[in-house]
């Protein structure tokens, strides 16, 4: 055998179109996902230069960021409406398949790619969206790009890339009951910071990762960008292959078997070297709650908000002070004493069927606290239907949750789903930046289970103490 290689090296090598000293590599792109917010200027650029879309068949578009999640067709904001109509016109003009707002395949771009089987091991996947790293869960090399690069990929189906270094994040042990993939990735970022992945592609390895479902793996890879990484991925295995079997865009019959064999061969070889490795002990991880304004500002639910006086550096002290001030929290305040007004279960991190199933188990037969407004926004129309088939919508509605149509919604509050200034939201999304869920809004990142528990109790509660029988 050749010298052992990582999956990152294997995918990279397969996609080199052109290589030259002193230059990045020109990589071929197998799948380009497009949404309404980061594409209009790219299409306009093509038109201005009289350029075509090279491979509309390798391009797939949807509307997710702006779409209303109630009254689907009442878009009050004229500029949002224009943006969505622009995508429709662009897709028509350039012949790109589009799952628009009324389409049964519509949903958050990172939810529908996998669900349709467009996302496959070994593919290079880009999208004008930083959470494109989600697709890495399948052993694809997937990363976010800017609008100029969107235009570049539309025109050439390639992208210039300097090869990043490789980072092995190895997760040992087992996750405890009630501790989820979301808690794991939050704990990793809390421990190593929002920059530890910068300049790297992360491969997640180890027992815990192997034992995760595809949906859990997507949650992990989704947040690679919050660690600064170019991409995050997981070598394909039986779990990956079984997930893809029968998906609409996956190969069929014997072709599927050939594909599966090839996909397996992409997995990182025994003994392959990485540029860096960090090891994580899963046994130590508890359900997490973020307290600050970036995803590394996160603590176990049993702990208290940090005290700036204990910061290691002046910069860190100032950052903690700013964050506490924005979040309206006191140093040393137990996070479980913090009351919330909003709960958002959704986003490309945690809006898939199993996320909703687990949250529903927590709320079943209970009531959302009077002071809390809680909503569930499924990641795609397909997830919504599947959940309704199981009666999850009824469980949520009976508990007092709003049950919405698919989209990004309160993850970034570009539509009407906004957290008002100064109010607090337990959110299953991925970013707790200032103003992310609305100007002055205070976001606390949690797992779906923890969000559901917070909705019932009106404050952060250790989900493991809420009738543990239902926890997986």
């Amino acid at each position, binding site marked *: 055998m050749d010298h052992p290689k990582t999956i990152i090296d294997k995918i990279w090598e397969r996609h080199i179109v052109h290589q030259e000293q002193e230059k990045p590599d020109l990589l*071929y792109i197998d799948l380009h996902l497009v949404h309404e917010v980061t594409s209009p200027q790219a299409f306009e650029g093509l038109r201005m230069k009289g350029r075509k879309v090279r491979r509309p068949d390798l391009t797939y578009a949807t509307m997710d960021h702006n779409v209303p999640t109630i009254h689907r067709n009442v878009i009050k904001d004229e500029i949002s409406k224009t943006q969505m109509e622009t995508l429709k016109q662009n897709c028509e003009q350039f012949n790109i398949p589009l799952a628009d707002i009324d389409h049964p395949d519509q949903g958050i771009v990172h939810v529908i790619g996998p669900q349709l089987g467009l996302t496959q091991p070994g593919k290079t996947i880009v999208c004008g969206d930083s959470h494109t790293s989600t697709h890495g869960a399948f052993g694809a090399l997937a990363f976010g790009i800017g609008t100029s690069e969107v235009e570049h990929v539309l025109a050439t189906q390639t992208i210039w890339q300097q090869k990043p270094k490789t980072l092995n994040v190895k997760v040992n042990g087992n996750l405890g009951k009630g501790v989820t993939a979301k808690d794991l990735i939050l704990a990793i970022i809390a421990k190593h910071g929002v*920059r530890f992945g910068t300049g790297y592609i992360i491969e997640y390895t180890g027992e815990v990762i192997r034992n995760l479902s595809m949906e859990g793996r997507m949650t992990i890879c989704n947040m690679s960008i919050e660690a*600064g990484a170019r991409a995050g991925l997981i070598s394909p295995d039986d779990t990956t292959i079984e997930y893809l079997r029968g998906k609409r865009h996956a190969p069929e019959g014997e072709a*599927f078997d050939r594909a599966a064999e090839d996909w397996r061969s992409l997995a990182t070889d025994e003994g392959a070297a990485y540029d860096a490795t960090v090891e994580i002990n899963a046994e130590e991880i508890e359900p997490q709650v973020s307290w600050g304004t970036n995803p590394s500002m996160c603590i176990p639910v049993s702990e208290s908000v940090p005290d700036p006086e204990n910061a290691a550096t002046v910069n860190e002290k100032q950052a903690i002070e700013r964050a506490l001030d924005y979040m309206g929290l006191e140093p040393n305040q137990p996070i479980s004493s913090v009351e919330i007004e909003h709960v958002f279960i959704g986003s490309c991190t945690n809006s898939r069927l199993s996320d909703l199933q687990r949250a529903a188990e927590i709320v079943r037969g209970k009531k959302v606290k009077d002071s809390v407004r809680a909503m569930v926004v499924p990641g795609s129309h397909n997830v919504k239907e599947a959940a309704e088939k199981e009666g999850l919508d009824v469980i949520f509605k009976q508990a007092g949750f709003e049950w919405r149509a698919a989209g990004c919604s309160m993850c970034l509050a*570009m539509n009407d789903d906004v957290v008002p200034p100064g109010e607090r939201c337990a959110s299953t999304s991925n970013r707790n930046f200032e103003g992310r869920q609305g*100007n002055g809004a205070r976001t606390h990142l949690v797992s779906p289970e923890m969000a559901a528990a917070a909705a019932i109790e009106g404050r952060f509660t250790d989900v493991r103490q809420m009738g543990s029988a239902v926890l997986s």
Partner: protein
Amino acid sequence: MEPLRIHEGLVYPLNRTNVDTDQIIPKQFLKRIERQGFGQFLFYNWRFHDDGEPREDFSLNDDKYKGASILVAGENFGCGSSREHAPWALEDYGFKVIIAPSFADIFYNNCFKNGLLPVTLNEETIQQLIKKAETERYEVTVNLEAQTVQDSEGMQESFDISSYQKEMLLNGWDEIAVTLNEADKIDQYEQNIVKY
């Protein structure tokens, strides 16, 4: 894209770390379908009150930084969302160079597509630049060709940049045109793609 070789300008110090693209340009301004005109929304939630009145406690509103074209900030500048609206807003506002100890990856790449030069310098130098610019009217010269940052008092630091990205900015190249020169290689690659 305008080529950028040597730029001399007024420094605006933003002594914050992890400035994310949600802060550089908040989402309510991402609905526009144009590339221009985002400068007025730069750092909107920091610069303005809810009623649109400028906030006195945000230093970019200070007259002494009027016309600033070089932004100096803390580590991990531009983290978060991939929105290219962030460099569009910075560029449209009048910034030409961003200096920080480190940048987020996607933001860094986006800068080069928009004639904006991201310069990485060490933390210590950055803190000196910030201090100077906070206390006096402070101008520096950024020379992309020589890869240096200088002031009139003898400070000179050099910075690293990949030769490809340097050439891009120096020449103001249209990257798509560059790539289309390799069109035959792309054709060839496509012919060799193995189907399952």
